[in-house]
């Protein structure tokens, strides 16, 4: 996208003619040029999704808060590396994924179990406080997700919760396309076996 066009786009073009993608590209171009207000708008659009992704990976709201902030600070510093045509959301999830990895590694070091390979071990149960706030179906879904390994859960959430395509997920996870499909398929089977009643026992 021509930067000059991007800078003036959402002021000149009639609102309904500016597609969400074009608007986003314009905002990215302006934010990369140092426009703090444009960056704030990108934050408002994407921070909720990034926060939920991190909360689901880290199973901890305070860690999700911190991770979301770190993700956007890093994103801001690297905005000019975003290529024309790249979608912002998958790129942000990729950064968030790295942030969550770092947090999990640090947590492991802190607990002192860094000699164990526990990437694929299920996460701890959600706290009673969190459970109280969730509807029953959400609780069951949360529990089913928590029973998945961290990476498989991340891939499934990117597809079903955040609407990324398989190729985009491959980019975020650093996996091959067949691996993405395989992991999501397995995650789905696990979910269906646990959530049969909520899925109309269709599985």
């Amino acid at each position, binding site marked *: 996208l021509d930067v000059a066009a991007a800078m003036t786009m959402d002021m000149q073009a009639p609102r309904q003619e500016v597609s969400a993608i074009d608007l986003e590209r314009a905002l990215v171009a302006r934010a990369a040029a140092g426009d703090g207000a444009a960056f704030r708008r990108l934050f408002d659009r994407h921070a909720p999704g990034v926060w939920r992704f991190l909360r689901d990976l880290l199973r901890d709201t305070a860690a999700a808060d911190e991770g979301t*902030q770190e993700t956007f600070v890093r994103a801001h510093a690297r905005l000019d590396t975003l290529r024309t045509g790249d979608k912002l959301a998958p790129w942000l999830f990729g950064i968030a994924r790295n942030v969550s990895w770092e947090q999990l590694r640090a947590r492991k070091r802190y607990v002192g179990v860094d000699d164990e390979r526990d990437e694929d071990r299920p996460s701890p149960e959600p706290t009673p406080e969190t459970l109280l706030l969730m509807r029953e179906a959400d609780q069951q879904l949360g529990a089913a997700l928590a029973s998945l390994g961290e990476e498989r859960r991340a891939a499934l959430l990117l597809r079903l919760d955040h609407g990324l395509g398989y190729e985009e997920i491959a980019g975020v996870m650093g996996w091959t396309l067949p691996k993405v499909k395989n992991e999501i398929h397995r995650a789905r089977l696990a979910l269906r076996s646990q959530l049969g009643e909520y899925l109309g026992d269709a599985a």
Partner: protein
Amino acid sequence: MTTCDWEALEALALGELDPERAHEVQAHAASCASCGKELAALAAERALFAGRAAAESPPVAALWPAVAARVVAPLTLVRRRRGALAAAVAVAAATVLFMWRTTTITSRTPTATSAPTTATAAPKEPVREVEQALDKAELSYRQAIAALEKEYASERSHADAATTRRHEARLRGLRRMLDEARAAAGDDVEARLQVLDAYSAYMRSVQTAVFKEEVPR
């Protein structure tokens, strides 16, 4: 769609197909028992995730100030640093002006040598001292302008073409005025003060070009 295509069913359930293709896939699922069942499962899955997302409102507004402090504040800092540079230059120019006025007055006033401010004796070569101050001020301006021009060169690519043209035209005009003023000034102190004014105007314009947009809080 006449054959079973699982990925098409999934895309349909996630609302990713265009209306025409969606219609085709739906028609197949309606006539194929296993695809119909799978589509129902995929739709239920989608509803479950959507319901969970809708039930939440992540507390992200509260997270913005800390992000802003780390990304927007540094920009403001750069701005302030540039402001400080300009202020230093202004002080240098004011010093020249002050010395020039003082020297003019003292040299024109017969009682100047007994003035209390010159208790340690009047400067032996007041004009030379003014010239040194003028040189110093000019140097400060040149350094400030070089720093700003470097900044401008690196930011120019981000600006839109019309704005860049406007800035360039203005800068060219001021640069020409500055060069003419310098060429005409020679050793004349008044003329050299005008050169400083030209430097100042040019510097302010480069500054405007660099900080074309206000950094919001």
